């Protein structure tokens, strides 16, 4: 039942919208309900309306998977913007045009005439192009995620294509626990406001931090260590005297 999965594109889009406001979320969910669950849904809506009538802070009783629940508040909430890739990547050809600008081409430019090879795992197996691409992402091959029929899109595990901008849907297929944590604000960097009634928030998407070809977070050089008197280690302090 792909429609029921939290990672399917409809649910993702519904969730992205729902982050901003509640009304869209309700409409979206009701339209997806099958007739057998209609009565349950109506009962739920009545229950919510009843709860509000008694001025109680009530939540929608059945949160669709992947939605961020929010307090029912009179104040309109500011949006949570998830950064998204601008679109399909463009490949730098290494040449410049008449105006001195770098010439880039879409993936499909070359891939329209080359034969896809489902067995390619790493760039080392290629004799041209994508040389030096560091690959360390499990046992996947290129066409696990890249769409052989349209290289300017990505491919879900069930064969459907997905835009580069919706890359999180793709990642979430395998990394479900990370997606779940992300949806609850417990994974991924963010800036802005914790209190959405006072301001908006911007969140990273998966590929802001993880290179999709080598997703392990890279080593970092730490910022300066503390130098306050009390925390200078005994050995270092002794060496200074």
């Amino acid at each position, binding site marked *: 039942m792909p429609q029921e999965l939290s990672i399917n594109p409809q649910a993702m889009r519904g969730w992205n919208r729902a982050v901003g406001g509640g009304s869209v979320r309700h409409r979206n969910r009701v339209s997806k309900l099958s007739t057998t669950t209609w009565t349950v849904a109506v009962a739920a809506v009545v229950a919510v309306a009843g709860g509000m009538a008694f001025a109680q802070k009530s939540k929608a009783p059945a949160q669709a998977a992947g939605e961020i629940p929010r*307090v029912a508040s009179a104040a309109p909430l500011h949006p949570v913007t998830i950064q998204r890739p601008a679109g399909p990547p463009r490949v730098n050809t290494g040449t410049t045009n008449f105006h001195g600008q770098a010439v880039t081409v879409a993936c499909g430019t070359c891939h329209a005439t080359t034969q896809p090879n489902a067995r390619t795992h790493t760039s080392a197996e290629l004799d041209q192009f994508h040389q030096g691409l560091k690959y360390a992402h499990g046992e996947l091959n290129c066409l696990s995620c890249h769409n052989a029929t349209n290289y300017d899109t990505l491919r879900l595990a069930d064969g459907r294509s997905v835009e580069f901008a919706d890359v999180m849907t793709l990642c979430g297929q395998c990394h479900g626990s990370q997606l779940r944590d992300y949806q609850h604000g417990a994974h991924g960097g963010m800036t802005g406001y914790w*209190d959405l009634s006072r301001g908006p928030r911007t969140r*990273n998407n998966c590929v802001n931090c993880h290179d999709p070809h080598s997703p392990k977070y890279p080593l970092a*050089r*730490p*910022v300066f260590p503390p130098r306050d008197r009390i925390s200078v280690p005994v050995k270092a302090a002794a060496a200074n005297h």
Partner: protein
Amino acid sequence: MSQPTTPPAEGITRRDMFKGLGATLGLAAYAKALAPLTEWKPFESVEDFLQKHYSELSAVDLEVVLKRIEKDTKKQYGADVQVSADRPQPGVKFGYALNLSICIGCRKCAEACHKENNHDRPSHQSYIRVLEMSNGSLDLEKGNAHYDHPVPAKDKFYMPIQCQQCDHPPCVDVCPVEATWKEPDGIVVVDYNWCIGCRYCEAACPYHARRFNWSKPQIPAAEINPVQGYLSNRIRPQGVMEKCTFCLHRTRNGKLPACLEACPTGARVFGNLLDPDSEIRWVLQNKRVFVLKEELGTKPQFFYFFDA
């Protein structure tokens, strides 16, 4: 037969000489002891000295105090700043959680704290100390805060420690002058103008979260964060204690703390513990969180967890 005693000689006797010598030495020692006073320049005005405790300031008093601090900062540091006194919001109690599986120990949080909170530049001061710990151990005594190599190192994990905003804060209990207290939104604050710098609180804190201003903080005017709070990041005077306030000048206005925004891996989760739908509540309900030194009964409002 006893010798006849010699009659006292005219002029200076030996006794007089010793008296004079003693008096001279005494005066010299006294002068030496008082010498530091000649170098003492009062950087505290009379109004500063006579200022009441923060909790006793009326709205008008407070306004005057804030303006005075702004003026003093301009005079001493050459920076135009705005000092506010944001109040706790009703229905808000702050909580913080940190995912130790994700933290890589890059100290970006400490750097952000350093800048946000107008810390003394030469001492690299910050409210966050990141401990490098060996896998399989939670012994804070063995944590190393001074590592300087690419992180994360093999078989290590990293534990940033800052004020845990305890519900039973021992630092508050020991303060002899009530210069530090817990606010209704859970933040333990210091009135820097009331603190006498006895450092009892530093000794009482089991998390080593408090810092002392050994010298007057040195910050170039261009680097001073002009958005300041009376109880948080205004430039502290010399000789007072300071501590993490969860960036209350930001968080009481709805913003995320600086350390969270700086975290490149998203290891930090911040929010309102009283909001059942907040991110922090989700973490508390769905992750196996723990607090540091739970056995001390300090009831920290800062939680750590590992991904399962």
